[in-house]
């Protein structure tokens, strides 16, 4: 399989994590070893085995659509890293070139 540092960089990109070259070089063989140990799964199952996504014997759990008190905006914003005019302040969304 041999996962390369470039492959790891692509995954880090998808996961929105900035990684240094040293981190990429360290992670590639580690992740490769872990994934290698998992490749035997596909051979051990038949195609007709249904997938299991969770263990709870429940389907379509609904609650009554009732009006209930919600958090005040002050409560919600209390943990925010930056607030402006009673709203979350976030960095700009678009690149200069966009």
């Amino acid at each position, binding site marked *: 399989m041999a996962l390369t540092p470039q492959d790891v960089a692509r995954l880090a990109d998808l*996961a929105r994590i900035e990684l240094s070259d040293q981190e990429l070089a360290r992670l590639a063989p580690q992740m490769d070893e872990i*994934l290698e*140990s998992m490749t035997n799964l596909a051979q051990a199952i038949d195609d007709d085995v249904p*997938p299991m996504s969770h263990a709870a014997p429940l389907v379509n759990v609904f609650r009554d659509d009732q009006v209930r008190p919600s958090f005040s905006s002050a409560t919600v914003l*209390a*943990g925010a890293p930056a607030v402006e005019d009673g709203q979350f302040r976030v960095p700009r969304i678009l690149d200069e070139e966009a």
Partner: protein
Amino acid sequence: MSSTINQSAAELARRIAAREQSSEEITRAHLDRIEQVDADVHAFLAVDAERALKQARAVDAKVAAGEKLGPLAGVPIAVKDTYCYQGLPTTAASRILEGWLPPYDSTVVSRLLAADMIILGKTNLDEFAMGSSTESSAFGPTRNPWDLERIPGGSGGGSAACLAAFEAPLALGSDTGGSIRQPAAVTGTVGIKPTYGGVSRFGLIALASSLDQPGPCARNVLDAALLHEVIGGFDPADSTSINEPLPDLVGAARKADIKGLRIGVVHELGGEGYAPGVEQRFAEAIEILSGLGAEIIEVGCPHFEYSLAAYYLIMTAEASSNLSRYDGMRYGLRVGDDGSATTEEVMRLTRAAGLGDEAKRRIMLGTYALSAGYYDAFYGSAQKMRTLIARDFASAFEKCDLLISPTTPTTAFKLGERLSDPMAMYKCDLCTMPASLAGISAASLPIGLSPADGLPVGLQVMAPAMADERCYLLGGALEAALNDRWGASLLDRIPEVGRPAGSQETSR
């Protein structure tokens, strides 16, 4: 050691209700103990002394007024730092949530407070509950009270260690692949992962939502059952909560009778890779169970050998999705917001600075397992293997009422020993992962010290979904028989904190 902190939760509750000892005095004794030993053990991330004493005085006033209170009223408890509790930071031991104050209480915390229990503080864990040693905590590892050079297990090492160090009589854990059971095993304490859906996850910081399950940590089986009954049962705020009454857990722990029960020994969970000291104690425990009138059967669960692969694919896939919420926008850490950086750049820098190595590794493994081209071979296969493992359990439970195995292949290893080898670390949970994947209930019980290193060994008992009482039935019976044989409980043999196990003569 004072005659307060070494008591069971049940005894402390009795004293409080009988007005023999106040909750305030009991709470203060535990706070003093924390003050005395936690610099060495580091089980706690936050201690909430003032509020705890205030809660205790309120309970004492209720008792004095003749109010009829619950079975654990006034008893202190430590809460793993994965549960939201207003007024204390909830961090999951991650820099990305350092100092974060939750705007609501988790259901289990609400139930502790409604039961008049006293919350001492928050306990340490591996970052986002990812690990088997607490070494991935951003705030430093917890140490095993049996030997401070060794790991207390993980992820709930803090909750297990605070029990073994007599800093709290009870603690709350959460178990995804073994995070309650494996720490219980290596610290000589009791831990139960209830049936999935048996205890509410509302307000629990998510690692892998289809596996996470809150549960009790205690020093004995009855105390665990008492706590389980306080926190368990249906919660409409958790969509996977099972809307059925809990079995009689306390009754089962007290009954402690396994005559005629068919107990299956899982063939696949033993042999190569299992420490001889662990296998010896496990074999002795089987003899005791047999002597108590249980029928011992060997059973095969052929797909268990694939549980590590299936578990790590499913857990990392769910974790990569759950942890995407830590993006520095609405709460938690934000890094690199210099006015010119874009949102995406800030997210990348925030997650790079706020997440530790293991969290990054698992997020990327999960991202890989879910990515186009690999999904079928990895995540899809893992979900199918999960079905086969659940079927192995189903056919085993046709032949027996309970299954047993060692909880862990080895005793506690030294801090740092497996840090640079993730696969070795992952193998700590070899025995505990199958029950997590199938969503059944499972517990770890102390069965003695390994003759090789003088460290605790745990036995895992597994019962079908919603038959958690069987774990307590066996737990109560085995505990009584072992205490009888030893003339004391296992924790009565723990060296005073600060002294390495097996060398009680040498001072450090």
